[in-house]
């Protein structure tokens, strides 16, 4: 079976694209590898967890940084905490099919872009433009209340809008510099390879023949 979607390129031309199941798994694999290397593991941890029926990949993304949470759909008073965890689920048919992201309903992120049920509002899924790394990036930034990713024009929890704007105006948000989320750009050099055999001694020059 294959998955089909309509792709609109940068020139506004639309065309139908299809991916096979193998393509879908390869895309998941590549994108998982990308996010696994992208973030500083001291601040952002990404863990694969057991998938349930209908799921292709289930990740738990945890940010260990100052943040705020709510405890129920009636709670409107953000409380401070030191970490936040989101569940991100990809379905068969990724990347043509959208991913879902949510927080625990009794410990969900206080953010204008998180529904009061704990589901995260991710932007409209555009096949071959939206991707798992982009969703993860938006969520980890949202978890430190980075206003650069906050959509104030489309609020899932309008009661958090003013609170969030006040935090930004007071300089409290983002709670840590966003660049601290990422792993160092300079990767350690690979270990030096052991010499396979000692260098041979320089052979003597040949004798003059005349």
């Amino acid at each position, binding site marked *: 079976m294959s998955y089909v979607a309509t792709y609109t390129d940068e020139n506004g031309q639309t065309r139908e694209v299809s991916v096979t199941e193998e393509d879908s798994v390869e895309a998941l694999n590549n994108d998982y590898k990308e996010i696994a290397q992208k973030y500083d593991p001291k601040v952002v941890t990404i863990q694969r967890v057991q998938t349930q029926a209908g799921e292709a990949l289930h990740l738990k993304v945890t940010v260990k940084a100052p943040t705020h949470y709510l405890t129920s759909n009636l709670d409107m008073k953000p409380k401070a905490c030191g970490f936040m965890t989101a569940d991100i689920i990809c379905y068969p*048919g990724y990347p043509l099919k959208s991913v879902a992201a949510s927080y625990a309903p009794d410990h969900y992120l206080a953010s204008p872009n998180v529904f009061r049920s704990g589901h995260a509002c991710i932007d409209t899924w555009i096949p071959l433009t939206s991707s798992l790394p982009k969703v993860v990036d938006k969520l980890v930034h949202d978890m430190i209340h980075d206003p650069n990713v906050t959509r104030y024009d489309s609020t899932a929890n309008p009661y958090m809008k003013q609170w969030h704007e006040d935090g930004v105006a007071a300089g409290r948000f983002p709670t840590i510099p966003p660049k601290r989320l990422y792993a160092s750009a300079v990767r350690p050099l690979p270990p030096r390879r052991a010499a396979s055999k000692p260098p041979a001694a320089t052979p003597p020059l040949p004798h003059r023949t005349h």
Partner: protein
Amino acid sequence: MPKVVYNVLKLSEYRPLFHDLRVLVIGTGAVGTHLMEKFAKMGLSPDALDFDHFTLENAAKHSCLVRTPEDAGRNKAECASDRAQVLLDDGCSSNGIDGELCKLGPEAFSDYAYVVAAVDNFDAKVLLNELIRQLPEERRPILIMDGTYDEMAQSVILDNTDFCLRCLIDESWMKDSSISTSCAGPQVRQIDGVDEIVRTSNLASCIAADLSAEQLRASVIGHDGVMNRRLTYTSYPHLELSAAHPMRKRNCPGCAIHPPAKIEWLHGNVMDVTLKEAMDQIATVLGTTDFELSVHRLNYRKVVHGVFIVEDVCHSCGRPIKVMKHDGRVFLDDLLCGECISQGKHAHHIDDFSRGEHLHAFEPSSREDIQQMSLYDLGYPLGAHIEVIQRNGALDFLDAEKITKTVFAFDGDHLKMHEIHKL
């Protein structure tokens, strides 16, 4: 009404070749009604599928198979099939189905020798191509697509070897594929920047049906050079009948669709078998209950519908409501609670509530009320290819080597097409 008894001595000597050959006409409008009449008189067994109803304003386009004004308001497929009954040869049959193409799966077409797409929108044609391409070659019917443009008529016959139906559709036509179309292009053209509906007459529709019937006739008899050809009739002042061989489109997404490598058969049909009964049969075939059925994926109008909505919220007041439908069969107005319906409120897209419980797969441990629903009510189309996934302890799809997928289908679905009247 007594049936017609034809004098076979006055008819084609090849007539026995057509006897009881099953044909499905999708769309029984201007072209489709002419086709139903011709196919019945040729000695075929034509079934019809259409969700629309006859209206008096379109009476000038239909075949005389449809009676005016008595048949106004009747479902087109049921009516055309009903009116064709008296024209059928002994032993032939015709069934009209009031339904949509998106409620059919690949195996629904496997009992037909020919399928004629006389529909007027490209979304339906793209979906039909996808369904036919998913059928293994030995059960794949021959496709005929016809239509009109002004007073021009066209018909293409294809067996999916040289090109597919999707190859014939220009990508630019797909921008607004819901508009009325024919096989020659959108039935809307711009004159001085203003969209104007292309007008066509009963004559063109009748000739399009004639071309299709002629292609079918020649293909049954076995003439050379019939298959994979497009016939085009051009009216006066450039009167002409021409034949062409369309080409395969490069990177055609339709040609990329292939049937499953293997299909396992279940007994019964999608309409009658419950999820529990299907699970039991699958467990017997696989020898385990550790599996899941993927919810049916419907790719229609550029959207992939692939979830079963158990609960959602009222799209007026926001209260939780029980839905129990596949998302491909849910309309916005279905997402209203009883109170809002009684108050005459309208549903609207709301942003401040998230969705409710949506399933992407069914399991043997799914809740009892879901287990007792028929597969059709769970969103599987008649003739579905049902994907069953065994995870075998895999953490997720990245453990690809552990996961096995099997495609199941029902052995009674193709016959159900000749019995059901409503989908």
